[in-house]
C-alpha cells in the first residue's frame, strides 16, 4: 500500500514535470499548407478587424479567441459585418490551434496551444485594445 502511494506521488510529480516540457517542445511557428493559408486569411482579415479592436467594439478573450465586447462602439451599418468577421476569425483561430497541434504530431495539445496563443495575442495587442484578464473581466491595454 505504501509503495503504491509512493508510486502515485512519483507519477504525479512526473506528470507535473512532463506537461510543461511536452508543451515547450511544441513548435508554434511550424508551417503546413493549412497553417500558411490560415495565416494569410487572418492577416487579410486583421485589416478589417483592427478598427474594431481600436474602438473597443471587439476585444481579445482569455481563451485565444475574439469577441464582440461593445457593439455600440461600431457604426450601425458595420455591426453585421463585425459579427461576421468575429465569427470567421474565431473559426480560423480554432482551426489554427488544431492545425499547429496536429502539425506537431500531438493533436491533444490543442488546448495548450490555444492557451499559449491567448497570452501571445494579448501581449502583442496594441495600446488601447481591450482584452479579458485572467478572471474574465475586460481590461483596456
Amino acid at each position, binding site marked *: 500500500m505504501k509503495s503504491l502511494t509512493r508510486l502515485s506521488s512519483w507519477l504525479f510529480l512526473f506528470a507535473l514535470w512532463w506537461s510543461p516540457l511536452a508543451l515547450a517542445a511544441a513548435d508554434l511557428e511550424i508551417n*503546413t*499548407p*493549412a*497553417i*500558411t*493559408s*490560415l495565416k494569410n*486569411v487572418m492577416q487579410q482579415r486583421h485589416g478589417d478587424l483592427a478598427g474594431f479592436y481600436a474602438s473597443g467594439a471587439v476585444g481579445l478573450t482569455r481563451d485565444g479567441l475574439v469577441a464582440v465586447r*461593445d*457593439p*455600440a*462602439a*461600431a457604426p*450601425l*451599418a458595420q*455591426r*453585421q459585418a463585425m*459579427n*461576421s468577421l468575429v*465569427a470567421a476569425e474565431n*473559426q*480560423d483561430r480554432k*482551426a*489554427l490551434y*488544431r*492545425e499547429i497541434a*496536429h*502539425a506537431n504530431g500531438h493533436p491533444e495539445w490543442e488546448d495548450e496551444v490555444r492557451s499559449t496563443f491567448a497570452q501571445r495575442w494579448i501581449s502583442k495587442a496594441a495600446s488601447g485594445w481591450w482584452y479579458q484578464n485572467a478572471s474574465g473581466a475586460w481590461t483596456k491595454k
Partner: protein
Amino acid sequence: MVWCISTNSNAAILNPIWARNSRHENFRYIIRTIADVAQLVEQRIRNAKVTSSIPVIGTRSGPAVFNCRPFSLLFALTFLLCLIPSAHGQQISLSIDDIGSPSFQIRGVAASLENDRFAVSIEELTLQGQTWKNIHLSCPKIRIEHDTIACDQGVLQGKQNWPVRFSFSPNSKKLSLDLRPAEKERWHIDVHWGKHWKIVADIENGDIAYATPWLPANIPTPNAGNVSGKLRLNGSSAKLLSADAELQLASLAFSDASGLHAGEKISVKMTLRARQERKDMAWQSHVSWDQGEIYWHPLYVSGSGVQLVASGHSSPQLIELERGVLNWPTIGEINASAVWDIASRQFAAATFEGKELNLGPLHATFLLPFLEKTALAKTTAAGKVGFSGRIASGEVQELDLNLSKVSLQDKEGRFALNNVHFTLPWRARSASMADLDIGGGRVLALPIGSFKSTIHLQDKNISIPRLAIPILGGSLNIENFRASQAATGWRWEFEGGLTPISMEQLSSALHLPKMHGTLAGVVPRVHYESGKLALDGALLVKAFDGTAVLQDLVLLDVLGHAPRMQASLDMRNLDLDLLTRAFSFGNMQGRIDVTVKGLELSNWKPVTFDAAVRSSPGNYPRKISQRAVQNISALGGAGAAAAIQRSFLGFFEEFGYSRIGLSCVLRNSVCMMDGVEPAPNGYVIVKGGGIPAITVIGYNRSVSWDELIARLQRVTQGNAKPIVQ
C-alpha cells in the same frame, strides 16, 4: 390653533357661508380648486397641513393651521374657505407629506399662494414605476376668471427650466397645458375629465426621450429623435373608448444595452384609429418607414418607403391582427393575420403569405445572415419566391414555399444553379413531398445539366430517394440521401455512384492536360456530422482503364480555410499509355499500380503519405519513349542519370523495360525516394529489359516536396533537360 377633522359631513352646512362671502372670491376659488384636486385624488393622504395668515372667524386671532392625521383634505380646505373673510395681502400654503394611489405616489407637496404669485413643488413624483424629483412650478401672476385659473408665464423647473402656460377650470373640468421645453418644441395638452374624459395632445418636435420612462423595460431605449403630430384619447371612467393618433417620428435612434438591437436616423409616419366595440378595441393603423437603418442582430435593414397597414381587435387577453400588409419596395408584399395570446406570449394562431417576392434582396437582407456557417454563406440569388404558412399554438403547422426561375451563385465561384423551380408543401407531423427542378449549373468548373427530383419531408427530416445529376455525358447519382437536424447542427448521409463520364470533357473543364477514356465510380455511404465528412466504405473509381479505390476518407472543416483530408488510395492496372498521353510526359506503354497510404492533405495540399508506383504484375507490352526517359531522369534532379545504351540512342525512339518503380515517403515537406531496387549510390527507377533496353537510376534519395512538384511541372510542360549518361 389646531383643528382635527375626521369627517366631511358638515360640508353642506358650510356652503351657505361660502356663498355669502363673495368679495374675495379669487382666494377662495384657489382653495376650492385645491380641494377639488384633493377630491379627485381622493386617495391616501398623509400629514396634510394647511396654514393661513388669515385670522379665522370665531376663533382667537392669528393664523389658522390644520394638521390632521387621518385627514379629509377636501373638508379641511372647504372649511378654511368658509372662514376666510379677506384674502387681500394674505398668504395661504398647503403641504402634504404623502399622497398615494395604486397608480402614483407623490411625496413632499408644498403649494403656496401669495397675492397673485402661485408656486407648487413636489419632492418626488412616482408614476408607473418612474420617479421624478424636485419638480417646481411657479407662476408670477396667476389669473383667475370665474371658473378658470390660468397662468401665461409660468416656469416648470426640473433639470431644465421650461416655460409653461396652463389654464385650469375645475367646474368645467378642463385643463389646458402648454409646454415649450425648447425653441421649436411644443407640447400642448388639453384634458377634460368627468364621467367621460378626453385628452388631446398636439406635439411639435417633442423630444422622444420624454417617452422613454413610459416604454417597457425590455425593449431598446430611444436615445434621440423627436415626435410631431396629434394624439386624441377619449374615455369613460378608467376605460379608454377611442384613440386617434397621427404622429411623425424623425431622427429616431434607439439601442439596447448590448447594441445588438439598434436603429439610427429613422423617420416614421404613423396613424392609429382605435374604437371600443363591445368588450374589444377595434383598431386600424398605418406605418410608413421612410428612412433610417436598423440592426436587429443578425439583420441589418435600411428603410425607404416600407409600409405597414394593419387592422384588428385587442382585448386584455388577445391582440388580434385581422389583416396586416407589409409592403417592402424592393421585395414585395406580405400579408398576415394573427392572434397573439398575451398571457402565454405566443401566437395562438397566425397565417402569412407572400407572392411573387423578389428573392435577390430577400436573400441578401433576410436569409444570408442566417446562413453564415453554411455552404450558402457567400451566395447571391435572383428570381421569384412565394410562401404561405399557418401557425397554431406557437408552432408552424403548415408552410408552402415556391421558388420560380431562381438562380443561385457562389461569389467564390464554387457552384452555381440556374433556373431553379422548387415547390414545398410542408406540414407538421405529416409527410410531405417537395418537387425540385434545376435547369443546370456548375460545381467548381464542372457544368451540370438539368435534373428533377422529389424531396420527402417529415418534420425536420429530409430524404431524397434518388437524384441523378447529369455531368459531362455521364451522371452523378445520389441515392438514399437523408438529412436531419441534431443538437450539433445538420447531419446528412447518402450513397451513390458515377456513371461513365468523359475524361476528355472532365480534363477540359478542370483545365487539366487532356485525358482520354472514361471515369466511373461507386460511392459508398457518405455521412456528415459536426463538420466532419467521412466515407463508410471504399470509393471505387474507374479511370485510365484501371481501378482506383479511395478508402478511409475523412474530411474536416470542408468549408473553412483549413480543410483537412485523410484517405488511402489504391490504384491498379492503370494504362500508362493513357496516363502519359494525358500529362505530356512522353509515351510509355505498360501498366502500373499506385498505392498511397496514410495520405493527409492540409488545405488540399499533401503533408504526409507513403506512396509507391510499381509496374503491375502480368504480361503486357512494356515500352518507354526517349522523351519519357528524359523526364523520369529529370525527376531525379540534377544528380540523376540515365544509363542508356548510347549506341542505340540515336536509332530508337522507344526502349524496353522490365520494371518501373518509384516511391516517396513524405514527411515534413521532404520526400524520401526509392526505386525498384538499389543501385550503386542510388536506386533503380526503370529497370531495362528486352532489346533495346534502358535503365534509369535516381541518385537523390531526399527531395524537397516543393522542388519535386516544380520538377514535375517542368517535365509535364516539356521543358526538361535531363543529364544523360
